[in-house]
């Protein structure tokens, strides 16, 4: 093994760190489109089998096979450096699968709640969810063609989004726009972390 003791070109770095950002929102709001706009791979779908453990969290009559059903999550990947990978995870569309959301946000750097102005009320459940979790998030209003155009402040007021939560308009189909959303999430996460640090609040 002549290369055993030397650093072979293409050998993986000794430590690879991976981070994730969660893209949340109701069904059909454009989460997978957003992920696909920046992902280096076609968005993949991973499935979790929900067992009886999930029973009782919601109206079981809405679950096809009581006891077991499948929850699908779409995700994408951005390899930023040899030793740094960012994953973007879309939440399951059905907000009743809160237990999957809990797993998804664990260790995430932040989240974006994607909102469709044609169905503003679909945003209430995701927004409530993040309001009660310790994870920096922002609201991204997806401007679909033909969707009613609102000013950012109108959306903020309609959804009762607190002033401390950033709100930006975006187009989930466009890479530059999605980049701006993700940059917004990370900047907000940094600001939140600095603020907490200055207050001496122990987090983590």
């Amino acid at each position, binding site marked *: 093994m002549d290369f055993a003791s030397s650093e072979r070109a293409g050998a993986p770095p000794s430590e690879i760190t991976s981070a994730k950002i969660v893209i949340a929102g109701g069904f059909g709001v454009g989460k997978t489109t957003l992920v696909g706009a920046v992902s280096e791979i076609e968005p993949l779908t991973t499935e979790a089998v929900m067992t009886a453990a999930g029973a009782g969290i919601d109206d079981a009559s809405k679950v096809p096979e009581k006891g077991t059903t499948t929850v699908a999550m779409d995700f994408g990947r951005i390899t930023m450096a040899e030793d740094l990978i960012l*994953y973007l995870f879309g939440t399951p569309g059905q907000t009743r699968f809160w237990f999957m959301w809990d797993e998804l946000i664990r*260790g995430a750097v932040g989240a974006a709640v994607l909102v469709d102005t044609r169905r503003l009320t679909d945003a209430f459940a995701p927004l409530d969810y993040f309001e009660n979790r310790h994870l920096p998030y922002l609201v991204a209003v997806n401007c679909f063609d033909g969707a009613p155009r609102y000013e950012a402040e109108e959306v903020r007021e309609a959804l009762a989004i607190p002033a401390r939560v950033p709100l930006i308009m975006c187009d989930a189909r466009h890479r530059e726009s999605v980049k701006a959303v993700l940059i917004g999430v990370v900047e907000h996460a940094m600001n939140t972390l600095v603020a907490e640090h200055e207050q001496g609040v122990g987090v*983590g």
Partner: protein
Amino acid sequence: MTQPHDPRGNLVRPYAVTRGRTEPIRDIPIEAVLVASSAAVQEARFAGHDKYRIAVLCEPKAQSLAELAALTRLPLGVARVLVADMVADGLLTLHSAAPRKGFTERMDLLGRVLSGLRKL
């Protein structure tokens, strides 16, 4: 759902590949990446079909648990049990997810992600 359905279908079949175990021997975050050496891939030939497929995927390129589940079409929980076993057996190297503690560590990571996004 009017289709005839084997009630064991969704549950039993996936977990048969883990010999019925549903709890991994260690927790692995869905975004944590795994890498296999070429020697490990050779060794995984004897570890069963699914573990071999996982090792093959992790040899050329680091893959997250989520990617392994998606690419092998195994449910996430099943993939997690298999991957945790493979890490314990030395077939896969588990890399770290983003730090959850420490102001400096977390700020460093956020800074790196931010500059990575700006360079996209």
